């Protein structure tokens, strides 16, 4: 049997993943046409490459459909409630850096900390009759972060894209989103809360703790680990 490795199927994340493995003596490539989601691995025998959506890789690891997978820390922690038990991080890959942050409008000059945010949320609810809305797609991570910080009177509203625009459109009062440079936030007149860093994320190679490993697959995994450590 072969060791199944899932990597992101498109864009810079895929290219950088290929480069990362190439530096470590493993050539990953797409087979067939640009549209086909199958690939090949040279350098170690017995590894099968699967090109998957980065968002699906956490679940595939957790269900044991793949043995190894490349995806961001943010997606693993958002999608897998018990990620420490389900996956092991084999290597942080040094790209795809992104911070999940909380950001509020620049014009909220009175809000720089979570303590401020909590006080404002209470006042906002009293004034407007509804809880202060936080637009995000990272519901679980943001909720756990705010619960832990003791922030109350907020609500999460789902936003799967163009999250920074929700404040101007008045569908949310603030956002929780991934940022790399802060450019989009600035352009949308938003600022990051001083203690509002929910998670630092980067592309990471994960191993499924749930998948079954045959003796051959174990030996392939050992060879791979040796190569990565070299």
């Amino acid at each position, binding site marked *: 049997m072969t060791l199944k490795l899932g990597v992101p199927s498109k864009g810079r994340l895929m290219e950088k993943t290929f480069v990362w493995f190439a530096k470590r003596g493993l050539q990953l490539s797409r087979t067939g046409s640009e549209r086909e989601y199958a690939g090949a691995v040279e350098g170690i025998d017995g590894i099968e490459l699967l090109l998957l959506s980065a968002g699906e890789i956490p679940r595939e690891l957790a269900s044991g459909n793949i043995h190894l997978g490349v995806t961001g820390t943010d997606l693993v922690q958002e999608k897998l409630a018990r990620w420490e038990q389900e996956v092991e991080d084999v290597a942080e890959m040094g790209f795809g850096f992104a911070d999940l942050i909380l950001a509020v409008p620049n014009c909220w000059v009175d809000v720089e900390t979570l303590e*401020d945010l909590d006080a404002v949320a209470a006042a906002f609810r009293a004034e407007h009759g509804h809880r202060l809305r936080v637009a995000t797609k990272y519901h679980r991570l943001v909720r756990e972060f705010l619960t832990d910080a003791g922030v109350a009177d*907020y609500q999460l509203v789902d936003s799967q894209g163009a999250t920074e625009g929700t404040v101007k459109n008045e569908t949310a009062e603030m956002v929780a989103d991934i940022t790399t440079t802060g450019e989009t936030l600035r352009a949308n007149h938003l600022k990051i809360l001083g203690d509002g860093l929910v998670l630092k994320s980067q592309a990471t190679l994960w191993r499924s703790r749930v998948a079954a490993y045959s003796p051959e697959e174990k030996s392939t995994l050992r060879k791979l680990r040796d190569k990565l450590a070299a």
Partner: protein
Amino acid sequence: MTRSDIFARAALLRQRFEIAGGQVVETPMLQPAATLLDLYGEDIRARAYVTSDALRGEQMLRPDFTVPVVQQHMADGAEPARYTYAGEVFRRQEHDPDRSNEYVQVGYEVFDRTDAAEADAEVFALFQLQLRGLPLRAATGDIGILMAAVDGLSTTAMRKSALRRHIWRPRRFRALLDRFAGRVDVPESRKALLAGEVDTSAPVIGKRRRAEVEARIAALKADAVVAPIADHELNALETLMAVRETLPFALEHMRDIAVDLPSILPALERLQARVAALRARGIDVDSLDFEAAYGRTSMEYYDGFVFGFYADRRPDLPPVATGGRYDALTRQLGQGGEIPAVGGVIRPDLILALEAEENV
């Protein structure tokens, strides 16, 4: 233990609660999510299953009975009223695979204006009776004492309401207390704001208007010159939160604390009356544990007497029964009405599990 064993025991318990005076009520399994979200905030999403349809919007699989039972009573209940119910509740579990996400609760709730101490004792005694013979420890507390302590602090209404709002979030409560006691430094960002050294040229976006920002700045400026909460009150409050003794000793101890926090005296009178009512019902009050901070982390709608029964030999199990007083909840759900209320729930599955162990 099969599901039918659990339901059979639930039926038996409900029957006993009926004999005690409870009128049987049923509630829908699907509850409108908005009511629960307004009450508990976003945290409830981590604990309840949410589903939805295009017609009714978000619905939750009933995470408890108390809210719908209170709503039913407030809509068309006679007074006084006693209710009992049995059925499944659903709790989302994201971290502990050993915790059930679906289990049966049997409850008993009392809506009665006449004698709060008597109603508290009635509920506690009834639950203790159902659990007789099991190796359980009863814990009791009283959130009302803590609330009275906060209300009586010699500080501004704004500070007191901030503390009141976070009684159920001990970490934020602690942080606020440290801030109001002047024990932590004012953050640089706040200093700059108070000194007027902030750039207010950013365009106003979003629903929170400039007037709201200005109102908060004014409130912060006013708060900056307020004296810190006095040491003797702070020490008394902290001593109070740490009280953990058998009831008679706890009561004595809290009377001492009341020298510095006299606002808790009426709440202590109520506790004294409860102790008498419990004693009159044959409860061994002298060995009953009392923790002033009990119920602060898990029982957010309770605002007076709280209790729970725990299997000390099985720390992995959740409490077998819990309950308490929730006068404020009836106000929140009552649309103008309110009535003192106290009640509790019991888990037949845990009773059966403990009985099975006893028989081994």
